[in-house]
């Protein structure tokens, strides 16, 4: 194993220091360090963060390897500064058995670019009628702790209650895609002024908010943990604020795109802006940013959702919802929140807390001697133009094409091994 000597890096924006990474851990930390046979990295001006953790990634394998594989998605994650991703269960076959989650977990290990932590489906086939074998997935080699039917909502209240209760046995958490399906039949975009003018069926905010309200009450009633995926409305924020004040064990995520983009983007009818939940209004964006700063929304998760060209270069109504996001997430967060959150606040929301929610004990740890070297080096002064063709993801459906973004990931270390160096994927 190569030893790395990182010179002059600013840990979480603090004073410059040196780090020695050896045998998978941070071996030394301090000024004027030297190490024999070490590969030296001049990190002057760079910021070191604990490796980022994404609680919400669609890797598409098995089933849609034409859109993404565990390997290409892992590479995209590493390029974005991630050292761990939670792979959503809506693959084909669905990750609703120990066999499938172990397969995904093994593919992640083989790729070796990030830790791939499979999410297990809550219900068989994501069909919302019968609980999947949650315990078997928890006991498998993948040690699943997060369960989600993401893409679908566990809309049956009795089933949701049982799922919340059942996973308490192995300290699991249900991550809900909050969308009352009866209120979103045929929905194409946020229901409001823009949709009215464009003649597109609306996805009302209340379809999300009513499920979140129900679920926090259920979680409180049975004393279970609940995680809310991709919160997108100001009303959802108010419900979460209320629930947290009551002491409900609820955590919530927001995506970078919901922190930056609004439903006005749909006026182009370009399906690259079609996503579920949909882009909302400017006042929702403002409320989400405030909620992120205040901690009402705990973390940023990408909802990285790769799709092939055929699934996006078509009529809006026929396009699949979703955007790739792993390689742009940190830049978007720096853009919208660095001045209010600082680097420590970003590390809290993109590394420590998601690692804690997912139960990933090797991740989200502050950089210090003896700690597993899962580290991201960022150049905060860099600016880069998003070129879809340059993305490491197999898919190109980024809503930021042509945009110039701040901050660039220069290096990512997974347990002491670089997965990205000089801004390029190592393997």
């Amino acid at each position: 194993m190569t030893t790395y000597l990182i010179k002059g890096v600013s840990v979480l924006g603090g004073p410059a220091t040196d780090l020695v990474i050896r045998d998978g851990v941070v071996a030394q930390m301090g000024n004027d360090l030297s190490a024999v046979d070490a590969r030296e990295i001049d990190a002057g001006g760079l910021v070191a963060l604990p490796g980022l953790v994404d609680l919400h990634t669609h890797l598409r394998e098995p089933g849609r390897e034409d859109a993404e594989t565990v390997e290409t998605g892992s590479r995209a994650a590493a390029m974005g500064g991630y050292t761990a991703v939670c792979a959503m269960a809506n693959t084909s076959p669905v990750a609703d058995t120990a066999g499938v989650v172990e397969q995904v977990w093994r593919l992640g290990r083989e790729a070796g670019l990030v830790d791939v932590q499979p999410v297990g489906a809550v219900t068989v086939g994501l069909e919302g009628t019968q609980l999947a074998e949650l315990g078997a997935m928890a006991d498998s080699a993948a040690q699943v702790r997060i369960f989600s039917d993401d893409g679908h909502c566990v809309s049956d209240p009795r089933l949701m209650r049982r799922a919340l209760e059942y996973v308490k046995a192995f300290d699991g958490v249900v991550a809900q895609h909050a969308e009352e399906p009866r209120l979103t039949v045929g929905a194409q975009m946020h229901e409001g002024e823009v949709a009215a003018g464009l003649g597109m069926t609306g996805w009302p905010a209340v379809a999300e908010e009513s499920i979140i309200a129900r679920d926090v009450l259920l979680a409180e009633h049975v004393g279970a943990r609940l995680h809310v995926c991709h919160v997108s409305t100001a009303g959802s924020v108010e419900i979460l604020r209320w629930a947290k004040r009551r002491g409900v064990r609820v955590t919530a995520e927001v995506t970078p795109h919901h922190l930056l983009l609004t439903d006005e983007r749909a006026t182009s009818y370009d399906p690259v802006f079609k996503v579920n939940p949909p882009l909302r209004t400017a006042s929702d964006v403002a409320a989400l940013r405030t909620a992120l700063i205040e901690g009402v929304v705990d973390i940023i998760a990408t909802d990285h959702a790769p799709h092939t060209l055929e699934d996006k270069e078509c009529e809006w109504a026929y396009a699949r919802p979703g955007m790739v996001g792993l390689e742009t997430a940190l830049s978007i967060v720096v853009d919208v929140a660095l001045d209010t959150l600082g680097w420590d606040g970003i590390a809290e929301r993109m590394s420590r807390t998601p690692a804690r929610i997912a139960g990933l004990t090797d991740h989200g740890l502050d950089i210090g001697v003896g700690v597993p070297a899962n580290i991201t080096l960022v150049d905060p002064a860099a600016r880069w133009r998003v070129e879809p063709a340059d993305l490491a993801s197999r898919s190109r459906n980024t809503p930021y094409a042509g945009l110039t973004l701040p901050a660039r990931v220069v290096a990512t270390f997974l347990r002491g091994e670089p997965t990205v160096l000089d801004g390029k994927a190592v393997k």
Partner: protein
Amino acid sequence: MIRHLLSAADLDAATATLVLDTAHEMALLADREVKKLPTLRGRTVVNLFYEDSTRTRISFEAAAKRLSADVINFSAKGSSVSKGESLKDTALTLQAMGADGVVVRHPASGAPHRLAHWVDGSVLNAGDGTHEHPTQALLDAYTMRSRLGRLEGLNVAIVGDVLHSRVARSNVLLLHTLGAKVTLVAPPTLLPVGVEAWPARTSYQLDSVLPDSDVVMMLRVQRERMDEAYFPSAREYSRRYGLDTARMRRLPEHAIVMHPGPMNRGMEITPEVADSVRSTIVEQVANGVSVRMAVLYLLLGGKV
């Protein structure tokens, strides 16, 4: 200069008026013995219809032929488009054929906008999903102007399923541009959330709107909407929002009754009203050809 006609919002007052004036000249031509103009000789107009709409297709076809254009009908039924060819591939085919104009009818809102990215010719929206139908709005405005002599200051009531109506959206935009005052009348369930931002008033009561209306435009309402609980029954709908002779009497003497067709007789309009002297329904069809000639002439002839 506009290249495409995707939305009624693409037309400012001067351009819209030019279209209506040109349509008037085209209408005069229809009374002549030789109905053809050589204006678009050698130009190709493709009718690309992903929805069955014989009346709109025939109207565009007649308009293009009277301008001596070559017309190709590309219907989704039984062609490569129904076999899963993407809109983009179809666009590239039309591009290779050298289409100067593409008239597109599509069930998905925004499909003509997408198409406009992929072809060099002019794209004419002939109705996209629940979005817009700009030439319908133009022919409606033309009909109002010929019957009532003006558009500025007219009170126009548009009644029915506004939520799902591309005719309503285009009419609100165009009539506002041309200075008419629109009131949308519908049960609350059939008005879109966000309608407050439109340049139109709204009302849930047809009876109170009629006495001040110069024009009442009845929209087609599908009976099946009651299955999605937009209203309780066809009977209740027509009782509250349908136009019958008793209601028609509430209109001022000069007021006209319009319908974009096809009608659901007995649902939103009774046969007596549809066939009355106030009704412009037959004229609208004839005016459709003149207005579409004007649009093709101005867009493809590079006159706008």
